């Protein structure tokens, strides 16, 4: 007979000390998903500055879209937020690949190890990307 485990529900966050790797993966995936969907709405709002751009000011580089993006990029806090966004996106992608594998029944026995691997790889990619994100002109 197969063994059954009652780990309780992951929504009961008060017992977080008892959570297993898979439960943490679930929580991180939800959290990063919330951040990404929030960013998607914000991103389209910012890019809406491209609607009705005057061709002459676009040629001169003084249009609202260009000045809004370069204005945001000139703020150091925005560069750090971009690094945070990269971390969130990379983890969601890597853990998403892990979830697809789990759904296909591939590597189920190592689903905890693949979660730790997703975390480590996210950390490595983000650290390696910091110079790129903080580089470029910063007023």
């Amino acid at each position, binding site marked *: 007979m*197969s063994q*059954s*485990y009652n780990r309780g529900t992951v*929504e009961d966050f008060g017992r977080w000390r008892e959570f297993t790797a898979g439960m943490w993966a679930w929580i991180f995936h*939800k959290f990063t*998903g*919330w951040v*990404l*969907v929030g960013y*998607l*709405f914000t991103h*389209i709002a910012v*890019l*809406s500055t*491209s*609607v*009705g*751009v005057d061709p002459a000011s*676009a*040629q001169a*580089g003084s*249009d609202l*879209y*260009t000045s809004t*993006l*370069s204005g945001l*990029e*000139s703020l150091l806090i925005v560069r750090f937020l*971009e690094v945070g966004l*990269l971390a969130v*996106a990379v983890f969601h*992608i890597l853990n*998403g*690949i892990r*979830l*697809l594998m789990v*759904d296909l029944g591939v590597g189920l026995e190592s689903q905890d190890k693949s979660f730790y691997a997703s975390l480590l790889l996210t950390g490595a990619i983000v650290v390696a*990307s910091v110079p*790129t*994100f903080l*580089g*470029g*002109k*910063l007023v």
Partner: protein
Amino acid sequence: MAQHYSSFDRGGRRWLFQRLTAVFLIGVLAFHFMLLHFVNHASDITFLGTQARMSQVSYFATMWLFLVTATFHGVNGVYNALVNQGLTGSQKNAVKYMLGIAGLLLVVQGTRVSLAMTTLV
């Protein structure tokens, strides 16, 4: 026997579409980040540069599909997360329609933005 535990209804199509859009988004999100942060630095982006990229049919189509699939994946994901938290009955229906309308508005505005960035139309 292990208990069935899922964010989705049994037999529903939302689970399948969430997975199918995920496969597409894995590639496109990574490509989007690479192109607009590593190949072209975000601080160097100008309207004319954006217009040049968005005026290629394949790039325009990829970005528009990115908008539609990301909106579906995000809004469907939020809905399922809320259902996980125990949302039921009329509240569940209200949230479903609100998220559906928000998603639709995002796609409409995103399409306006895409068209404003291209010389294709």
